[in-house]
């Protein structure tokens, strides 16, 4: 092996014989990958060497972004993937490299993000000996990937890599991991391109919906008196054409549209038919429309517990249509009347065609009544808050951020907690792929590395991570990555000195006993930014907010904006644990919040 390590062979791209390490680089190029996120280590050195050679020979056609922690690599890949529709690619070493990547891999699995992760492994003959930096990576990640591979023979590597990209990006997207022992990276075999390999699996996801069920579904919608679209991340994953189809179908049917956290942007917030987000911190009008509707059209969402609230009181009188690419999502949590397995874009297009072909008309009289009811719910103004002249309200901070960035080419990422929900409520998304957040797993630390990935994919755009002072510290090291690559990401921290959502739940459920939720010993975020070579801005005066936000936007550098906000503001409205969609706590009920939840509700998450 030592002989091989010292022999540098720069294989011409036409040569078919190459090492496993060279195959990885070649296959990535053939898959159209331009950016990969990684961190070197002993077990991936041959791949890093092949990358060095490729960059020398061909320029940076494959750009490696050196992160500061492998978790950062996975979230950056997620941000890249979510904002482009292309798979995110990660390269890390064995053992700790792989285990550090796990959180981002699970995050990608939960939120259906296409990702291919390469991990180095100790040489084949050392597997099982508890070798240095050995971990059973395929064993550990079997439960948290869509599929994974341990490559035992270099001849299989081209097929496995191309298969991995196919599996990660088709059907319900997800993370696929390839574990490559170091000796396999050094071995040589014949490379095969994406079109030359024969897949070894029977994997063939269904994308075309059943035409009989589609016809049945549109007839049901045409007869509806109180229809509602409930859309999710599946519409985003199906590409911008799916969002366009959703807009067309919503206009044809005259139905209002609400969306999950993951689906924001698929339908424009500026459209009069937009109800806002639904669920635990969704709007009053969206949740009431869900509860009272007679036909629900769920597209690419999965009846998550944050969305349904109390299951036995979930939309009790509706017929439910569920469109999902994952057959196991249908009838999982909520029984539906028409389940259509297929790609959101394909099914929505077919529904539009079926609607036209059958000459269907919406019941405009009934819809007028429905819209009157919706307007009555809107009049409640569930997102109202009381501004202050002395303290910045977190809601106000997001509203101003939106007002000052709405006309720009903006991408928003978030961490997890109150700030995330306020961002979802107050930042108004008009297009898909503009909103990157950790929905299913709820990973604090997601936002900044995700912003790094987004900024790399969209160099000229404004990329803002809306953060909390607690979340941001979980992956703060990636600021160094942003500085290294000159990525002018903006980190907008709603700093209330508390793990706000934890504090809110302790207030609600645990008698205001604030156990371990205060952020003691916070760093000086301005100095921290400066220490990393970024720009720090602090603001605590509402009167200065706009000017300082503009200063942040106008900076050509990465910025940490320490926005000091009202400390004890609660995120409302809210469906309390164990309650139904029509039992929301509104802002004026917030003071008495501890009494709303009963003993059973206290036990839930």
């Amino acid at each position, binding site marked *: 092996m030592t002989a091989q390590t010292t022999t540098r062979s720069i294989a011409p791209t036409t040569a078919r014989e190459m090492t496993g390490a060279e195959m990885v680089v070649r296959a990535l190029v053939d898959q159209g990958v331009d950016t990969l996120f990684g961190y070197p280590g002993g077990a991936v050195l041959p791949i890093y060497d092949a990358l060095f050679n490729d960059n020398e020979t061909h320029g940076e056609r494959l750009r490696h972004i050196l992160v500061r922690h492998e978790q950062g690599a996975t979230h950056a890949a997620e941000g890249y993937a979510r904002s482009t529709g292309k798979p995110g690619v990660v390269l890390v070493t064995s053992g700790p490299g792989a285990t550090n990547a796990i959180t981002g891999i699970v995050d990608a699995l939960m939120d259906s993000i296409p990702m291919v992760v390469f991990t180095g492994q100790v040489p084949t003959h050392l597997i099982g000996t508890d070798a240095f930096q050995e971990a059973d990576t*395929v*064993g550990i990640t*079997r*439960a948290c990937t*869509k*599929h994974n591979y*341990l490559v035992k023979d270099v001849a299989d590597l081209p097929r496995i890599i191309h298969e991995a990209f196919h*599996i990660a990006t088709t059907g319900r997207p997800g993370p696929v991991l390839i574990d490559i022992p170091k000796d396999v990276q050094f071995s040589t075999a014949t490379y095969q391109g994406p079109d030359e390999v024969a897949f*070894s*699996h*029977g*994997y063939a996801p269904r994308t075309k919906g059943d035409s009989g069920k589609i016809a049945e579904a549109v007839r049901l919608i045409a007869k509806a008196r109180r229809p509602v679209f409930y859309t999710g991340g599946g519409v985003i994953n199906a590409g911008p054409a799916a969002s366009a189809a959703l807009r067309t179908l919503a206009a044809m049917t005259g139905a209002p549209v609400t969306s999950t956290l993951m689906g924001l942007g698929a339908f424009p917030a500026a459209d009069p038919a937009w109800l806002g987000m639904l669920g635990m911190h969704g709007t009053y009008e969206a949740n009431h429309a869900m509860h009272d509707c007679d036909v629900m059209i769920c597209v690419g969402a999965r009846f998550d*517990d944050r969305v*349904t*609230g*109390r*299951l*036995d009181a*979930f939309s*009790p009188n*509706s*017929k*439910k249509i569920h469109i999902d690419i*994952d*057959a*196991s999502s*249908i*009838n*999982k*949590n*909520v*029984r*539906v*009347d028409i389940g259509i397995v297929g790609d959101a874009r394909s099914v929505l297009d077919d529904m539009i065609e079926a609607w036209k072909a059958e000459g269907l008309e919406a019941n405009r009289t009934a819809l007028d009544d429905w819209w009157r009811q919706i307007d009555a719910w809107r009049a409640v103004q569930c997102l109202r808050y009381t501004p202050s002249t002395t303290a910045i309200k977190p809601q106000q901070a997001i509203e101003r951020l939106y007002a000052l960035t709405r006309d720009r080419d903006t991408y928003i990422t978030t961490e997890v907690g109150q700030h995330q929900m306020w961002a979802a409520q107050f930042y108004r998304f008009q297009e898909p792929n503009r909103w990157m957040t950790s929905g299913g797993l709820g990973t604090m630390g997601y936002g900044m590395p995700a912003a790094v990935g987004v900024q790399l994919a969209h160099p000229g755009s404004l990329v803002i991570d809306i953060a909390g002072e607690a979340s941001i510290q979980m992956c703060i090291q990636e600021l160094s990555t942003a500085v290294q690559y000159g990525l002018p990401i903006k980190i907008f921290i709603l700093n209330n000195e508390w793990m706000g959502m934890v504090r809110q739940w302790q207030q609600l459920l645990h008698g205001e006993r604030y156990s371990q939720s205060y952020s003691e010993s916070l760093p000086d975020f301005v100095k921290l930014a400066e220490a990393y070579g970024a720009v720090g801005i602090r603001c605590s005066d509402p009167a200065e907010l706009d000017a300082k936000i503009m200063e942040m936007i106008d900076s050509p550098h990465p910025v940490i904006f320490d926005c000091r906000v009202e400390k004890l503001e609660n995120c409302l409205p809210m469906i309390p*644990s*164990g*309650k139904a969609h029509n039992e929301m706590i509104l802002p004026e009920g917030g003071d008495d919040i501890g009494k709303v939840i009963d003993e*059973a*509700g206290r*036990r*839930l*998450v």
Partner: protein
Amino acid sequence: MKPGAGWFKGGDMTTAPNPASAYDMSHEDVVENLATFALLVDNEAGVLHRVVGLFAARGYNIDSLTVAETDRRSHTSRITIVTRGAPHVLEQIEAQLSKVVSVRRVHDVTRDPNGIERELALVKVRGTGTDRVEALRVSDIFRAKVIDTTSESFVFEITGAPSKIDSFVELMRPLGLVELSRTGVLSIERGAEGM
């Protein structure tokens, strides 16, 4: 069951109290059915773990499990898994299994009128005198084979539906049952067609 109403409201499936959230879903009081799933899977390292791990991660039961390579040329193995659950849980299990990339086919043997299920058991019985004679007589009725004997024991080999083996074991218990080893259920479909 009224569609769309949620299956938790009672009806023919459940007597569970209304859960307040997905976290509260209790299957304890739900009527559970046995189901046998036959799976054709790619014969590769870790494939059994994928299937078993899915059952563990989602809280499904495994009553019995058999696995062996069945076609060396196409690298396929067959896994037969006996599980139990309410109808909607069984439906989920089938959907979840079908999603595993290494799983080529999932067949619900229980719902198939042409499904055949068989199991093999080795049963050790120790006894003398009339018990020993009775054990031999019962084994004859069940068409069990004696595959080992000493002056005070038999090892019987018996095949059949799991319920037949259960009956045999219950009859052997008072006659000196010492040890029992069962393969778990195997299945195949009647007729000329393959899976």
